[in-house]
């Protein structure tokens, strides 16, 4: 080790010690699973790197938790909550594993790769810097376990319903021998049709409106059988920044709606549509009632290269609806087909985590591998 390296190492150690960053003071990572949890940690492996970056300490955590289903029911989805004491309660993270199909007694890995950057001078408590804990486990009967502090149950439910929809769709294609459609659906060999990537930034808190901001109409994309329909909307747009988007929606049913997730599509100045995601509103909507859903934050969009995306058009659609009785609605394949003639947009709307996973299997193992996987999942459910 050179003299400079030794000096840097010594400085790092001194700074760590002076700021209470000794690992014996609670360590870097801790995990918590309740004793009655259907999921427990059997083992873990990984490593942690601590380095200096200017006036900050960077903690690189790479851990693989080996979890085991100790319950009596198959687990089809799981959410682990990741909390760092420095940013709690203003921010937190989570790792979600949808489409699991873990039978009782089976083990499965969950990787947690993260980086924590904190000022050297920040105080440290007695507990570990990062806490990983179970937020929700969803079983194959769609019942759930866990504190659900992140509303994970609803998220896992949507993923599971999308997974069942897409598996059913692919099974139908296989059963009827529509292999060209299957190939097109799973984008085999077509690198251009992988999900479009974009950069996002969400700002919450005091933020002055951008210069040259103007109102932009939000165009609704309607699914024919959706229980809630978007009527109209608007947002303040300046360049790549969208502020205060709002949309009026109407509950067309006689049921009470407890939450609606509105999907957003952004079109850039090249005419390319990006499904930017879905924002869930937990405002209840009475039967046949119209409600205005708004978001107070500011969103900034950029291309994967980092270049700001110029927003030309905004569209919205109903991604999912949860009723007061706990039941859930998501758009069917027929709904998506009927909503738009744009094939690329249709594919964007239909892409689910499960389809992404099955497409990966199809690319590696072909039709037989896909059939085998669909059969395995069907039997585990």
């Amino acid at each position: 080790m050179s003299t400079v390296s030794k000096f840097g190492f010594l400085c790092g150690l001194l700074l760590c010690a002076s700021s209470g960053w000794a690992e014996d003071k609670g360590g870097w990572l801790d995990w918590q699973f309740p004793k009655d949890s259907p999921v427990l940690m059997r083992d873990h492996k990984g490593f942690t790197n601590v380095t200096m970056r200017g006036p900050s300490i960077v903690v690189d955590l790479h851990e693989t938790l080996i979890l085991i289903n100790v319950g009596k029911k198959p687990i089809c989805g799981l959410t682990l909550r990741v909390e760092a004491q420095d940013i709690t309660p203003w921010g937190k993270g989570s790792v979600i594993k949808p489409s699991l199909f873990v039978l009782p007694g089976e083990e499965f890995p969950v990787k947690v790769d993260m980086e924590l950057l904190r000022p050297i001078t920040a105080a440290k408590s007695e507990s570990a810097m990062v806490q990983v804990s179970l937020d929700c486990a969803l079983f194959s009967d769609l019942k759930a376990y866990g504190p659900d502090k992140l509303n994970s149950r609803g998220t896992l439910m949507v993923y599971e319903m999308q997974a069942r929809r897409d598996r059913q769709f692919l099974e139908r294609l296989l059963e009827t021998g529509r292999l060209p459609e299957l190939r097109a659906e799973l984008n085999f060999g077509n690198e251009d049709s992988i999900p479009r990537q974009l950069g996002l930034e969400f700002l919450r808190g005091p933020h002055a409106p951008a210069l040259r901001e103007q109102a932009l109409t939000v165009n609704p994309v309607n699914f024919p059988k959706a229980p809630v329909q978007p009527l109209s909307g608007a947002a303040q747009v300046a360049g790549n920044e969208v502020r205060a988007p709002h949309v009026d929606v109407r509950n067309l049913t006689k049921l009470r709606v407890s939450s609606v997730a509105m999907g957003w599509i952004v079109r850039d100045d090249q005419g390319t549509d990006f499904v930017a995601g879905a924002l869930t509103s937990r405002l209840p909507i009475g039967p046949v009632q119209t409600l205005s859903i708004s978001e107070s934050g500011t969103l900034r969009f950029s291309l994967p290269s980092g270049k700001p995306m110029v927003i030309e058009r905004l569209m919205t659609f109903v991604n999912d609806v949860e009723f007061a009785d706990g039941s859930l609605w998501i758009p069917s394949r027929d709904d998506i087909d009927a909503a738009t003639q744009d094939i690329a947009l249709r594919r964007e709307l239909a892409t689910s985590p499960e389809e992404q996973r099955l497409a990966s299997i199809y690319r590696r193992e072909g039709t037989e591998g896909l059939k085998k996987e669909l059969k395995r999942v069907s039997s585990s459910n």
Partner: protein
Amino acid sequence: MNAPVPEHPAIEILSLYSAGDLPFLLRQRTKRHVGKCAACEQQVLSLQSAKAELRREAHGEVLTGFEAIADWQSLESDMVGNIRVGVAASRCIENVGRRRRIGSRLAWAAGMVALFAAGWMSRIPPEDNARILMALRRAVGLEQPVFNGTVVRSTPEGITVRAQGSTLTLLHPQSAVVSMSSPASVTARYIDDDSGQVTITNVYGQ
């Protein structure tokens, strides 16, 4: 009987007397003597006459030596003009030197700037350049000031939430698809190469 004539003054005294260069008391005493002594008076007149002749001759020689100088004012103008020309020329030479020095310094500075710019463009990633440019635009008021609340965002390496000076980043591969979810959260979805499972990471801001 006539009063006795005092002793004659020395010839140097008479010479000085004739030129009016004696002190007051000695001049008065010599004057009284010359007024009474015809020989001394003659000596004084002789000295004054010789002196006048010398002055006349001297004047004539001076005119002869400066015959070429017809006009003193003209000569003065010429001399002042020459001096000014000399001073101006020296200033001009001085300015030329200064300009050369300034020019060489500017060229050196421009070269260094060009070298710095080339190094910067080849070494600093475009994203950092964009951030620096944005910071400059903020400094001059063309952009909004830095946001101080909770920020969630995506980067090529992961999704981050920043609050209270600390940043938590959940890392993901570059193939991850990023989208927004609520409330105030960003999601990244990717296939884990080792297990083949879908992994979805989220960061939440409040």
